[in-house]
Structures are given as C-alpha cells and as structure tokens.
C-alpha cells in the first residue's frame, strides 16, 4: 500500500504527459489542415473548371460544384472535411475517383523506403565525415568534406539524378534502372508476393524472395544514394560545426590532459553532447525526405508521395493534396516525438 500514492502520481504525470502530447499533435494537425485548406480555396483557380474541362456546359459545372460541396460556406466545408478525416476518410480523389487513403497508402511506403535508406546513408557517411573535418580543421580532409558538402547543397538534384542514371545505369550497368523493380520481377512481385508493408525491400524479405530483394535493392540504391548524398551534405556540415563547438570546451581539455585516448575523447565524450542537437538535424532531414522528393521521384519513376501530391496539385485535386499533406504532417509530428524521446535517452538533463 505504501507505494500506491507514488505510483498514482507517476501515472497521473504520465497521463498528463500523454494528453499534452496528443493535444499538441491535434493542434498541429488542425493548424496544418486549416492553412492548407485555406490556401487551396483562395488560389485564383477554379477547381471545378479544372476537373470538368473545356467542354462542360454551365449545368455540368454547377452539378460538379454541388457534388464537391463547394457551394457551402468555407467554414462548413472545413468542418466537414476535418470530421471525415478524423474517421479515417480523407475523401475521394477528384481526378481518379479513388479514395485518397488508398492512394496515399500506396505512395507513402515507396517514399518511406527511399527516405529511410537515404537517411541511413546520410548518417553513416555524414557523421564520420563531419567529425573528420572538425578534428582536423583547415586540413585537406576538412576541405574535401566541405567541398563535397557544398556540392551536395548546390548542384540541382535532378541533374545529379540524370547524370547518376546515365553513368551507373546507362554506361556501367551497376544498378537497376528507374522504377522499383525490373519488369519481370515487378510482375512476379504483383502476383506472387502479398504486400504487408508496401515497402518492397521489407515485403520481399518477409516472403523470403531474396532474388527480388536484390533486384529491388539494385533499383533503390541510386535514388537513395543520391538523396543520401544531399542529406549527408547537411548532416556533415552540422556535425562539423557541433563537434568543433564541443572540442573547444573545457571538459575536452580535461579529458585530454588526463591522457584519455583521442578516439575516446571524440566518440564518447564529445559525441554524447553533439548527439543532442544532431538528433534534431537528422530528424528534420528525414522528415524532409518523407515529404517526397518530387524531382528525384520523377526522374527515377518512383511512385512516391511527392509526385502524388504534385500531380494532384497540377490538376487542382484538393482532396488528394490535403490527404497527402496530412500524412506528411503526421510524419513530421511523429518524428518530433521520437526525437524528443531520444533526447531523454541521450541527455540526462532532459529526463
């Protein structure tokens, strides 16, 4: 019985924490929806005309307007939309008549697969490169890391993508071409593998189809490497600056004076402190990729979220745009939560 009050207050505080988190999440999402919704309605483009096309009569236009609920007041349209969204109904795409949730459910795993691999590549390459540059400022290694980073920042990604395809796929033949699988494997995948996650790398492994997995990997390597390079450019730059900052601190000097091996000073002592801001950087970079990299997706014929949202925008298919935006919003919020949790793990002060 003695422990009861303590555990009760612990539970209460946890519940409060959970409620606060959920509240923040809800506010963020509603805010996001509101802004997107308003933008979609104030742009000087008539969504009805965009759908019914050049030939429609005035009567057809009016029918379409009513069918889309566009004759109702704006706030009412918004409330209806949010109400439906809460029940998991993101509406129906105006263009294809397909439920938005189905289309997004297909596009998001493709993007997630690509973004995750790209982030892994970005972290594996970017963190050590940043550390290398920070520990030898002004050296050749530092200059190379900064130059490579600068290139990742400044060279247009569609150019890199096309040149990458030309070189590694066209000339050298090291990687698979555009798309997620070779044609033969694509057909096998569609008819022989039950989709579980929608991520081909995961689904083929779950099905034990290693040949298909290898083929999928050969297709994803180049776009993921490309996006990984861009995210590496960002991560290495930030790591360098965080690390240089830490290496100037007194506790580092103390550690060195105590005769601690240099690798331990850098990778254990300094790194623990670098990790805190670095997690935010990585999470942001990952979240950016989850939005979908439109140009990369277009060049690599990758059926991801970025091209889905962009295509929908082009034809003013607002339910599709809003649906895609919500998914991106949820991804952002979730990643924020995860990085919050990770803070607490690496930084005792945040516990």
């Amino acid at each position: 019985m003695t422990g009861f009050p303590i555990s009760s207050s612990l539970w209460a505080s946890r519940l409060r924490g959970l409620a606060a988190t959920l509240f923040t999440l809800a506010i963020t999402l509603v805010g996001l929806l509101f802004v997107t919704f308003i933008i979609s309605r104030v742009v000087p483009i008539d969504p009805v005309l965009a759908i019914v096309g050049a030939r429609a009569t005035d009567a057809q236009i009016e029918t379409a307007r009513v069918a889309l609920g566009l004759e109702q007041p704006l706030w009412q349209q918004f409330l209806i939309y949010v109400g439906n969204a809460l029940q998991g109904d993101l509406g129906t795409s105006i263009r294809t008549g397909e439920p938005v949730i189905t289309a997004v459910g297909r596009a998001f795993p493709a993007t997630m697969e690509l973004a995750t691999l790209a982030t892994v590549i970005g972290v594996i390459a970017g963190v050590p490169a940043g550390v290398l540059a920070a520990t030898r400022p002004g050296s050749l290694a530092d200059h190379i890391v900064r130059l490579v980073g600068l290139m990742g920042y400044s060279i247009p990604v569609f150019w890199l993508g096309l040149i990458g395809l030309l070189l590694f796929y066209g000339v050298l033949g090291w990687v698979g071409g555009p798309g997620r699988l070779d044609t033969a494997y694509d057909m096998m995948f569609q008819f022989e593998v039950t989709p579980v996650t929608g991520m081909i790398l995961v689904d083929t492994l779950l099905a034990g189809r290693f040949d298909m997995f290898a083929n999928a990997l050969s297709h994803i390597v180049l776009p993921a490497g490309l996006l990984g390079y861009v995210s590496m450019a960002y991560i290495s730059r930030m790591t360098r600056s965080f690390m240089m900052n830490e290496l100037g601190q007194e506790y580092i000097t103390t550690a060195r004076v105590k005769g601690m091996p240099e690798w331990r000073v850098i990778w254990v002592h300094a790194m623990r402190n670098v990790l805190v801001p670095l997690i935010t950087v990585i999470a942001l970079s990952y979240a950016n990729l989850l939005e979908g990299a439109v140009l990369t997706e277009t060049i690599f014929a990758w059926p991801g979220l970025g091209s889905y949202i962009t295509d929908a925008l082009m034809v003013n298919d607002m339910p599709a745009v809003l649906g895609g935006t919500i998914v991106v919003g949820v991804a952002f919020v979730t990643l924020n939560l995860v990085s919050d949790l990770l803070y607490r793990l690496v930084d005792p002060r945040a516990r």
Partner: protein
Amino acid sequence: MTFDPILRRAGLAAAAALMLTAAPSALLAATPADTLVIADAIDDIVSLDPQEAFEFSALDVVNNTYDGLVELDPAQPTGPQPGLAESWEVSEDGLTFTFKMKDGITFSSGNPVTAEDAALSLQRAVKIDKSPAFILNQFGWTADNVEQMVTFDGDKVILKTDKPYAPTFLYNCLTSGVASILDMKTVMEHDVNGDMGNAWLNTNSAGTGAYVLKSFKPNEGYILEARAGHWRGDARLKTVFMRHVPEAATQRLMLEKGDIDIARELSPVDIEAIGSNPALKVEQDVGGQIFYLAFNQKNENYKNETFLNAMRWAIDYNGLAETVLKGNMVTHQAFLPKGYLGALEDLPYSLDVEKAKALLAESGVTDPKVVIDVRNASDRMEMAQSIQNTFGQVGIAVELNIGDGSEQLKRYRARQHDATLQSWGPDYPDPQTNASTFAWNRNNSDEGKVGTLAWRNAYDPGPLNDLTEAAVMERDGDKRAAMYAELQQTHRETSPFIAMFQIAHNSAMGTNVEGFHTGGAIDSAAYWLVTK
C-alpha cells in the same frame, strides 16, 4: 587519426554490400521475350471503365480489352469495319439501324457475346452518364428513353435515333470507347450501390479484346494479359506491361538499355539522338489535337476578313514546325485533323510578310494591336513569341498575356479574351465533333451560352451553321465528306480562327519491334499485332 580504421571499415562494408547486391541483378535487366514493355506518362488515366474512360492513356487500355459493334482497322483507321457485328442496315426513314451480331465470339470470361449484351452495354453507357456519354446522347438517347431506343431481338441489336442522322455519324461514334460492348452478366455481378460495376471495372476488364486487364495501379502502370480465343486471332505477345515513366530522358535511357521495348513520350532532343542509334527506330504519327489562334469578334477589327487574312500570312508555320516544334507538331491548316472524314490536308498559307503588309493596308485597320492569351507551357510560349515577332514585322503589335491554363479557359468561356492561342482535341472519331464547335453557333448573344468555340469568339458562322447541320444528316458518305471539305475551306477563309498545327506523336522502339500502331488521330493504340 585513431578513428580512421572505424571509418574505413564502415565505408568498405557499405560499399561492398551495395556492389554485391547490385551486380548480379543488373544482369537480369532485359525485357522478357513474351512481354511488351512500354514506358509512357499515364497519369491522365481517370478510369478504366470503358464507358467512363476519356483520356488518351485510358482509351489505349480500352482499345485492347474491349470491342464495339463496329471497329477501326488499327493499321489503317479510315472507316468503320465489322467488329462484333457482322453486318448492319438502315431503315428507309433513316431512324432505325439494325446490327446483326457475329456468331461464336466469347468474352474473356467465356460467356458468349449476345445481342442482349450489346444492347444492355449501350444502355449502361447512357445510364451511368460519365464524361463520354454525350457521344451517345447525340442520337436522342437519354437515361429515360434508352431502353426503348436501344433494344435487341434474337441476334440483332436495334438502335433508334431521334433524327435521320448521317449513318456514318452513328458508325463513327460507335467506334469510340464509350460504345464498347461489355460482358453484362459479369459486370452486373459486381454492381455496388447501383454503380453498374463502375468501380470494379477500374481494375478489371470484361470485354472481348485481345487482352485482359490483370492489374492497374494509378501512377505506376498496368499489366494486360493475352486471352486465348480472341476473335481477330490471338495477340502475338502474351503480356503487355505499361510503366508510368513521366520523364522523357529517363524513358530514353531505359530504351537504350533495353529495359523497355517502346518509349512513347520522348522530347525532340531524345528523338534526334535515338535516330542515330542503329538498334532503335522512331515511328511518327499524328494525334487529334489542333493548335489554333482565335480572335474574339467583340473586337470589330476581327470582323474584317482582310485583316484576318493578313494575319494568316504573318505566321511562320514551317519555321516553327522545323525548329522549336520539330517532332512534336506538324503544320495543319484546317479544323479537322488529318485522318478524319473529309479533312483538308493542303497547306495554302505560309509566312509572306510583304503579302501580309499589303493585306493589312488594304483592310484599313490602322495601328492594330492584338492581345493573345497564352497558357504557360513552353511549346505554346515559343509559338506565341514567334507569332509576336512575325506579326511585328507586318506591323501588328502583339501583347502576350501568359497565365495558368484553367484561368485562361475561364476567360475564354466568358468571352473576355481579345485573342487566344488554344488547342482542341476531338471527342469522337467523326467530323461532327469539330465542325459542331468551330463552325456552329445559333445564338451569338452573351446570354445564348452556346458554349461552342465559335460562340466563345462571338463568331456567327452564318451559312456555315446550315452546312454543319446538313453535313451531320447527309446519308451519302462521299457527299458528306465533300460537305466537310467545303465547310473547312470557307471556315479557314472567313472565320476568326487560324488553324496552325496538328500534334504529332513519336514512338521510339527497338528495331525488332514490329506492328505497333498508335491509332493516329482517330483511334487508340493497338498492342495485339505487335511482335518483337
């Protein structure tokens, strides 16, 4: 430094993992021998229900999975041929058409094709009332009366029309996708909330075509599989795999690598590069879209026929077709696209600055200024800039109003433009589709809201109204073609329209690929004759 080995090890491991997995699979990259792999931009697909499909990519699928009572020959799509009907006749009064069904044809399900299927299919198209339904509504068929207008008796389908239209008008309309004959037993088994199988048909097919739809994923692609016992003879290749590849440069690379057999959406630059590759070939064909300039006759200047004529001689048709539009468009100077019944293919106009100047002086229009609405697409802007330049040489000042397509359409529909650079694609394979919009406007008042292109430009076609109405009723096919020739001739000399170009399509493929037909301006792609 001490951490170098770690870094090196991690890097090597990562590189080795990538190389090992990538290398063997790259060897498998070639299209399977019994599969036709095509890359195209297919994000225009809205639905694969043949009676809703109304976009180029969707109609390609419909053409290979369904047939109509009458069909076009894919190799030479000039006039209607027997499809699922073996013969047909028109009654004396021209109001009743009787089609006798062929015997022994089956749907992909194995169900026999009956006259009942045909009648119910045509009724369904009118009842579900999707975008292309108006093609059939033209014959007086409405949801209320279609069960009386479209009936069957034994092996005959009987179609009644509200007026004695030109028989070729009906036959041409029956070749379009909306008049596809469906396996109604199978379709109605998949009726959900009275949609008559509309949702189910988006990912399944129930027709008599050479192929069956196996899978469709929007923005990814579709797979068609050949069926045994197709009435034209089985398809040569077992599978068709369409990959949605929006980027032209990517399509070209895949073609050069042999990962696809046909690329359908290439830029002129890619086409030129492919032309010099001995392993590849390019086949050019025209599509149905016409690019034209139109002038709003609310501006009195544009009622002056001599002034309009001056502008016709002030456009560098050939210069544009040979440079910026090369491979994408061909010069075409009549409102019916090449391939249509009665289409005029001669090119009377060319750039002649002196002649245009003389005509301008003769017209009496002083200090002319034209404001042209142009959609913000690169080919249109290049066209508009060239026109601005050559009009300028003649002494006609041009201001370009560049903007979003749907906004400009709104202005056009409201008759608010001065002049506009537009394109028009025909809706069905009969000349009436363009004649009825370019050359017909019975009420030229703002309240009239006729909506045709003639109305939008406040153009009263006068005697051409009668000619358009007469042509769609003319029962003699040759006479009808002659009427459309006359209609186009007068139209291009007197109307405020200047037809300039017809769109061209380039398909690049391996030299081993034979028998691919895009269908030109009036039909869709046929896959079943392709060999490789």
